[in-house]
């Protein structure tokens, strides 16, 4: 990776896609440090195999596919991880320690995210987040997950219904 235009390309990849990929990874590994490690690995693998990507098309979808595979590998090795204060404190604003309101807000946000993620099965989470962050069509998601399209649609529908219940409960 020596040519300047190649460096610019990598910079653009990071600028345009790293937040989405990291958000996806966080939903699975749930620890910022682990997500950051995986994020670097996603971009490294994607960059080294960029010739293959060029044959396939969309950058975001390409990166999300790699992120999905790495996140699942990590989960199989380490098992499901629960959110905890130590894990998430790194992503809260630095001023949060000084501001009780921000601490409370952070705790509420964490609790809500924890609740939302627990409502969803792993497959539902994958379907909805590949759609949210990757913008993949359901057919492409089915291919990525090696599942029939009907199963993917079902996971998506059930996941949305579960999230809707969560919102309704919060409103009441």
């Amino acid at each position, binding site marked *: 990776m020596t040519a300047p235009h190649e460096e610019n390309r990598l910079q653009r990849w990071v600028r345009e896609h790293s937040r989405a990929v990291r958000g996806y990874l966080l939903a699975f590994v749930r620890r910022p440090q682990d997500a950051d490690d995986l994020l670097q690995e996603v971009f490294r693998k994607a960059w080294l195999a960029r010739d293959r990507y060029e044959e396939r098309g969309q950058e975001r979808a390409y990166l999300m596919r790699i992120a999905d595979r790495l996140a699942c590998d990590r989960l199989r090795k380490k098992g499901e991880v629960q959110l905890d204060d130590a894990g998430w404190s790194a992503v809260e604003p630095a001023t949060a320690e000084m501001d009780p309101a921000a601490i409370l807000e952070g705790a509420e946000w964490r609790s809500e995210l924890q609740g939302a993620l627990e409502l969803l099965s792993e497959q539902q989470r994958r379907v909805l987040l590949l759609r949210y962050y990757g913008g993949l069509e359901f057919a492409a998601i089915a291919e990525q997950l090696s599942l029939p399209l009907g199963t993917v649609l079902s996971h998506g529908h059930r996941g*949305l219904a579960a999230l809707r219940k969560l919102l309704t409960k919060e409103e009441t």
Partner: protein
Amino acid sequence: MNEADQNFLPDDVERLTRATAPPDATATDLDAETLALRDGFLRLGELLDQAAEFDEAALLAKLNHSLQSEAPAPARREKQKQRPWILPASIVGGVVAAAIILLLCQTFFTFDFDPDIKPIANLPGTKTIPEVDSNLDMTGFAPWRDVLDERLTMAQIRMQEASHLPLRRTSLISAAEEMRAMQHELNTSSL
């Protein structure tokens, strides 16, 4: 299809697709049901987005460092890609070289081997033959100047000369014949 599967009508698929359209897509004409589903979808994304703040520059620095150490591999692949003939050429070259070696072996290294010929040194009562080379000064052998010693020495010189030259079938055969004759003489007359 597993038990989670349902039969989705095109309208259901359309609703699901619209409910899960990317966040920046403008959602218009959504019915209440689809809108409620979309709210849940977007809320999950927002919650995750809040946690997605991080240091892009640090990531880029780590990536550059990591990728620089792996740079030679793609370069090598690229180089190999530019010379697709290298593998077939190597195989053909190897085959030709093997054929030439085989031919040379057959030409120079096949000679009749007589298992009855025993080395002179192993014969009982044989004198030790001094080591000689091609520049041997024969006057050094004056005290033992008998016919058999001289013939043995000459034969050894011929053998040594022959060992410096490329192996030739005829010279080796004649040397072997001479050795055999001397062996006969040793067995019959000298001993």
